[in-house]
C-alpha cells in the first residue's frame, strides 16, 4: 500500500511537471466549478485499461493526452494503454471491438458512433450528470451526441468538438467591399462574386470529402431552413426550401475556383495556403499551418475566421465533429474506465489539454469557455463554440445508423454537387436525394 502511494506520488509529480512544461508559458485560467460530489466508482483491483482514440491533430494534443493518462496511472495505480488510430480506421476498429467483445475498454469515437453501439456500451448518466453539474452544464451539440436521442440517458461522454467556420483573407474581403463575412445570404453571394472579380475566388469542397464538403453542404441546406428528415424521422429533403438552397448553391458555385467538384479534405487547405483562394470553410488547421510557417507571417496576420452566414436559420447553421468516449460492456473494469474518463475531464487535466490543442478541439462542458486558450488568440473565437451548435448530421431526426449512412453516402453533398455542376436541375436533384434517403431510412 505504502509503496503504491510513494510510486504514485512520484509519478504524479512527474506527470504534472510534464504537463506544465508542455503548456509552456500559457497561464491557466480559473475554471469555475460547483461543489459536487463525484460518483462513487471504486476502482477494481488489478485493473488495466486500453483506450482507442483518433490520431492527434497536432503534437501537443497527443502529448498532453498521454501526460494526463500517465498522471491517472500514477495516481490510481491503473496501467493504461492509449492507441492512436487514423481517422478512418477508428470506425472499423471500434466495430471489431463491439462485435468480438474484446479489445479496447474505452473508445473515443466520432460524433454518432456511440449511437450505433447502444446495446454494447455502458450507461454513463451518473458520470455525465456529475460533470455537467460541476462544470456549468453540457453544451447543446455535446449533449445531443452524448445522450440517447430525446432521452436523458447518457451513453457517452463528449470530450470535445472541432468546427468548420469560414476561413478568409481580410485584405481581399475588404478589396471586395466587405468588412467581414455578412450574415445575409444575398450579401454573401455578392461578396463571392466580387471576390471572383478581383481574381481571388472562394473555393468550397464539393467532392466526396467527409469533413469539408459535408460542412459546406450542411450549411447551404440549414441556412435555407432545409433539413434531411423531420422530427419524426420522416424524409423531408424534397421541399421548396431545399430547392431554394440548390438554386443559391448554383449561383455561388459560379464564383468558385475551378475544380472544387473533385476536392477532398486537404484540397482547400492546399489552395488557401498557396493563396489561390480567398475564402473557404475549414477547421483551424489552415490557420495554424500558415501561422507556424515563419515565411508566411504576413499572410497569417491577414487570415481570419467567422461563422458562416446565418441565413434563415435560428442559430448558427453549422455543425462540428465531436469525439465521444464510450465504455464497452465487455470491459472487466467498468469503474476504472469511468474513473479514467472522469479524471481526464476534470479541470486539472482537461484545461491543460484544451489549452495545448490551441483551438483544434473545443470544450464540451460550458465552464471551459473560461479557459485561457480562448483568450490567447481572438481569431479562434469561431472555433470556441463548436459544441454549442444546434445542428447535427441527420438534423432534425433521430441520430442512428440511417442518419450515419446518409452522411457516409454523401447524399446531401452529391445533391448540391449535381446542381452546382449542372448535371441535374434542383428539382431532379432533390427528388434523387429523397429517393436515396428513403432507401436508407427504409421508407
Amino acid at each position, binding site marked *: 500500500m505504502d509503496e503504491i502511494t510513494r510510486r504514485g506520488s512520484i509519478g504524479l509529480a512527474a506527470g504534472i511537471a510534464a504537463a506544465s512544461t508542455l503548456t509552456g508559458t500559457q497561464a491557466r485560467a480559473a475554471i469555475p466549478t460547483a461543489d459536487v460530489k463525484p460518483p462513487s466508482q471504486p476502482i477494481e483491483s488489478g485493473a488495466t485499461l486500453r483506450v482507442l482514440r483518433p490520431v492527434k491533430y497536432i503534437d501537443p494534443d497527443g502529448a498532453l493526452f498521454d501526460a494526463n493518462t500517465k498522471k491517472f496511472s500514477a495516481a490510481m495505480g491503473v496501467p493504461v494503454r492509449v492507441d492512436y488510430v487514423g481517422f*478512418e480506421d477508428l*470506425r*472499423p476498429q471500434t*466495430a471489431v471491438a*463491439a462485435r468480438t467483445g474484446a479489445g479496447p475498454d474505452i473508445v473515443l469515437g466520432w460524433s454518432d458512433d456511440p449511437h*450505433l*453501439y*447502444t*446495446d*454494447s456500451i455502458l450507461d454513463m448518466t451518473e458520470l455525465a450528470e456529475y460533470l455537467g453539474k460541476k462544470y456549468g452544464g453540457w453544451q447543446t451539440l455535446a449533449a445531443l451526441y452524448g445522450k440517447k436521442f430525446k432521452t436523458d440517458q447518457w451513453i457517452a461522454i463528449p470530450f470535445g468538438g472541432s468546427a468548420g467556420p469560414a476561413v478568409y483573407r481580410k485584405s481581399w474581403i475588404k478589396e471586395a467591399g466587405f468588412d467581414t463575412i455578412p450574415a445575409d445570404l444575398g450579401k454573401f453571394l455578392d461578396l463571392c462574386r466580387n471576390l471572383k472579380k478581383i481574381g481571388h475566388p472562394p473555393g468550397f469542397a*464539393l*467532392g*466526396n*470529402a*467527409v469533413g469539408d464538403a459535408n460542412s459546406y453542404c450542411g450549411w447551404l441546406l440549414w441556412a435555407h431552413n432545409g433539413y434531411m428528415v423531420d422530427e419524426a424521422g420522416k424524409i423531408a429533403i424534397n421541399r421548396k426550401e431545399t430547392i431554394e438552397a440548390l438554386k443559391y448553391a448554383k449561383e455561388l458555385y459560379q464564383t468558385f*475556383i*475551378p*475544380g*472544387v*467538384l*473533385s*476536392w*477532398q479534405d486537404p*484540397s482547400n487547405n*492546399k*489552395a488557401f495556403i*498557396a493563396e*489561390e483562394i480567398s475564402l473557404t470553410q475549414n477547421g483551424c488547421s489552415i490557420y495554424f499551418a500558415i501561422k507556424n510557417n515563419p515565411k508566411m507571417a504576413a499572410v497569417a496576420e491577414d487570415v481570419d475566421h467567422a461563422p458562416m452566414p446565418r441565413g434563415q436559420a435560428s442559430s448558427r447553421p453549422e455543425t462540428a465533429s465531436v469525439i465521444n468516449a464510450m465504455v464497452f460492456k465487455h470491459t472487466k473494469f467498468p469503474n476504472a474506465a469511468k474513473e479514467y474518463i472522469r479524471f481526464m475531464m476534470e479541470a486539472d487535466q482537461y484545461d491543460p489539454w484544451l489549452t495545448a490543442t490551441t483551438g483544434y478541439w473545443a470544450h464540451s462542458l460550458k465552464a471551459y469557455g473560461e479557459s485561457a486558450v480562448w483568450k490567447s488568440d481572438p481569431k479562434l473565437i469561431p472555433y470556441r463554440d463548436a459544441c454549442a451548435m444546434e445542428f447535427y448530421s441527420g438534423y432534425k431526426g433521430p441520430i442512428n*445508423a440511417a442518419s*450515419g*449512412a446518409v452522411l*457516409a*453516402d454523401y447524399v446531401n453533398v*452529391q445533391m448540391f*454537387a*449535381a446542381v452546382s*455542376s449542372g*448535371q441535374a436541375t434542383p428539382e431532379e436533384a432533390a427528388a434523387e436525394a429523397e429517393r*436515396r434517403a428513403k*432507401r436508407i431510412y427504409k421508407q
Partner: protein
Amino acid sequence: MSTVDSKTVDALNWVAPKRDPGALGRLMDNKMFLVCVCLFPALGLLIVFLTYPLGLGIYLAFTDTQIGHAGEWVGLENFESLFQDRIFLNAVWWTVAYTFFATILKFGLGLWLALLLNHHVPFKSLIRAIILLPYIVPTVLSAIAFWWIYDPQFSIISYVLVDKLHWMEHYIDFLGTPWNARWSLIAANVWRGIPFVAITLLAGLQTISPSLYEAAMLDGASPWQRFRFVTRPLLMPILAIVMTFSVLFTFTDFQLVYAITRGGPINATHLMATLAFQRGIPGSHLGEGAAIAVAMIPFLILATVFSYFALGRRKWQQGSDND
C-alpha cells in the same frame, strides 16, 4: 550332399527380427493419415484465412447486419434493393468498363514493352529494373502521386501545358467531370499494371526457342508473320494466365480509386469494391456492403473461365501438339 554346415544354414535363414511397430508407428505408416497430417497446415490456413472470411461475407450478404447490431436473415432483400439502386448499377457498369479498358491498354502496352525488351538493347537489366518500379511502389503512394498530378490547382501537367508551353488557356479539370475522372483513373491503373504484364510476358517470350525464329526466317517469314505464327501461339498460355490475374486485380481495385476520387465526382467513378466499403464501414450497413462484394463474384468467375477457356485452350497444354 551338402557341405554346408549348420551354422551357415542359420546365417542364410537369418532374417532381421521383426519389431512390432508401436501404435504411433503404425499410424504414421497409414498413407491416408499421413496425407491428412501433411495437408492440415495448408488446409488450416486456407480455411481460417480464406474459406471462413469468404463464407462469412457471403452469409452477411443475406442478412441486414449493421455495425453494432447482429442482423437477421433477410434472404435476397439486399440484392433486390441493390438492383433498384442507380448508384450500384452504375458501379457495376463502371467496374466492367474500367476493367475492360484498363486490361486492353495494359496488355497492348505491356506486350509491346516485352517485345522491345526481348531484343538486345544496351543496359537491358537496368531497364528491366526500372520498368518494375511502378509495381514496386506501394499502391497508396502511387495513388497519392497521381492525386497530385490530377490536382485541379497544382497539376504538373496543367502547369507545363498552361504556364510553360502556353498551349492551353485553362488548367485541366482531371477529376471534376465524369469522363475526365474515368480516363484519369484508367491511366493511373494502366501505369501501375504495365510492369506486371510486361515482365511476365517477357519471361514467356524468353522460353520460346530462338531456333523456331531461325527456322521461320529461313522460310522467308516476315517479322509480322514471325510474330503471328511463332510468338503468338507460344505466348498464348502464359498470356491467358497473366490476363486472368490482371483482370482479377483490376476488377477488385480499391486503393487507386479510393485515394484519388473516393468514387466522385458524384459517384461517377465508384467501383464495386469502393462502394462496398463505403456502404459497409463508414455507412455501417455491413449486410449491404457484403452484398455488393458478393455481387462481384459472378463477374470474377466469368472472367476466369473466359480467360482459361477462350484464350488458353491449346491442345499442347493437354499433352498433344498444336494443330
